[in-house]
């Protein structure tokens, strides 16, 4: 069993000059690291951006682990969508409750049910997407936050 002093080396120690700089430095490093990881607000690299109810949602298609442009989603091939939900410059704490897609003119949706996986810091991945026909697909994101449920929509044209 370690002594109390070894387990808590700063306990009871007097504040020294220089400690303030260390704490500030740690705070800056921590803040930069956190913001780089969280990447809020979304950038162009995070994909198409939707805004509603104080939330910023960015989404981008991914195939084989690599992001692709929304205009390049291939027809009849499985892909994933990575989603980031921000509230200003910080992750919103909201969760992506569901993601689905329909063809309004055809009056049907996908033949596959995506599964949402949280990948940390306000990011989610919807796996198992497929647009099996050419034409307009409408994406529907359902986001659950402290304010309630928000539905955000975006259109994709598959050729």
């Amino acid at each position: 069993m370690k002594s109390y002093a070894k387990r808590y080396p700063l306990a009871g120690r007097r504040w020294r000059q220089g400690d303030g700089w260390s704490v500030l430095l740690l705070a800056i490093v921590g803040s930069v690291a956190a913001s780089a990881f969280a990447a809020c607000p979304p950038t162009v690299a995070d994909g198409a951006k939707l805004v509603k109810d104080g939330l910023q949602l960015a989404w981008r298609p991914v195939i084989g682990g690599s992001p692709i442009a929304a205009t390049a989603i291939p027809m009849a091939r499985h892909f994933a969508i990575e989603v980031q939900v921000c509230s200003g410059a910080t992750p919103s704490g909201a969760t992506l409750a569901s993601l689905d897609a329909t063809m309004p003119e055809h009056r049907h949706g996908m033949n596959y049910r995506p599964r949402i996986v949280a990948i940390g810091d306000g990011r989610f991945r919807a796996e198992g997407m497929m647009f099996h026909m050419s034409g307009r697909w409408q994406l529907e994101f359902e986001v659950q936050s402290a304010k309630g449920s928000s539905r955000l929509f975006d259109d994709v044209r598959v050729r």
Partner: protein
Amino acid sequence: MTFGFADRISRLLFLGAGLALLSGGPAAAPTIEFTDEEIARIASHGPWPPDWQGDPGNRASGNPAAIRLGQSLFFDARLSANGKLSCATCHQPRSGFQDGRLTARGLARGTRNTPGLLNVRHQRWFGWDGGHDNLWSASLRPILDPREMGGSAARSARLLNASPSLACHYREAFGKPPTADDPEFPVNLAKAIAAWQETLVSPPTPFDRFREALTDKDAAAAASYPQAARRGLRLFLGRGQCATCHAGPLFSNGEFGDIGVPFFVRPAGVDPGRQGGIKHLLASPYNLLGDHNDDATRGNAVGTRHLRPEHRNFGEFKVPTLRNLTLTAPYMHNGSLASLRDVVRHYSELDEDRLHSDGERILKPLMLSAGEIDDLVAFLETLSPPAPPQPPLPPPGALPCPARR
């Protein structure tokens, strides 16, 4: 950019028209020109053939010994209960591995048209209802099904052990002797047959050469593509909306649809199509979520894992490839349409009352003229090779083992 090509074609047309006027002869029918947008869509139906990619779920995929074994077994009637039916009885090489019948005939009469096997390796779902998510599982079912070949693991093991050549191929492919009590044995046989079927790729067609000429901007090579086929291709891409489902190099999105073909079967019953296929698939121990999938990552099981059964699946059947159609009449899941002209007429006169109320909304009668029907048929005919592919037919048992590599 395709502008230069289109521009060149226009100039050639202009020159041709001028020459016709100078010669005093009748002006030739105008050549169909495709827009850049159309050319991009035409390009999406190739290149052909696609690059080889082995099946990660089949350890025998691309294995020469397994391919030889699979080829021998495919033509071997001794696998069947009556010793008279092989896979090739219904899947006949000279007919694009189809049998020309309305519905298949094994030990009993089937209710569905035998699907052709050329390019089968590129499919996602197998069978008209997609009841299989892999080719080896789809190859095993007819061997064991009492209505088709009625075979068994014991019968197959006896066959292999009585044939030094077949047993040798099996040992080379799977590293152990064939034994009926090995639960992997029937699956391995099916994987060998699948490995052979993966080699059945049809040659390039007149359409493929035209597509290549367009993408290469080779006006001279493109010129040999018939005008009627060009008009049909434009209809296919445009007003017909055929390419909405008949997409990509296979001319199929690999999914399912209800296009108003009756699903009643004699004497009394219905064929549930995709709805039944999904039930069968998810209950099968041979699907890609099961233990027999050789892809340890299960990365090849995305489709099965995410399947979403829907009410509209009832009466849906697979969107078939349009390649090699001239070899595989009759058409549709029940073989009810005898000719390509009948198929085009079906879409022209579509019975909307027959379609699902929650089905595909863009399906409307195309109301084609007689000339437009001719054009679409002319186009579809260019998706088949001018001559049937050479059937791969070494006699069963004549293949050497150990395999010469």
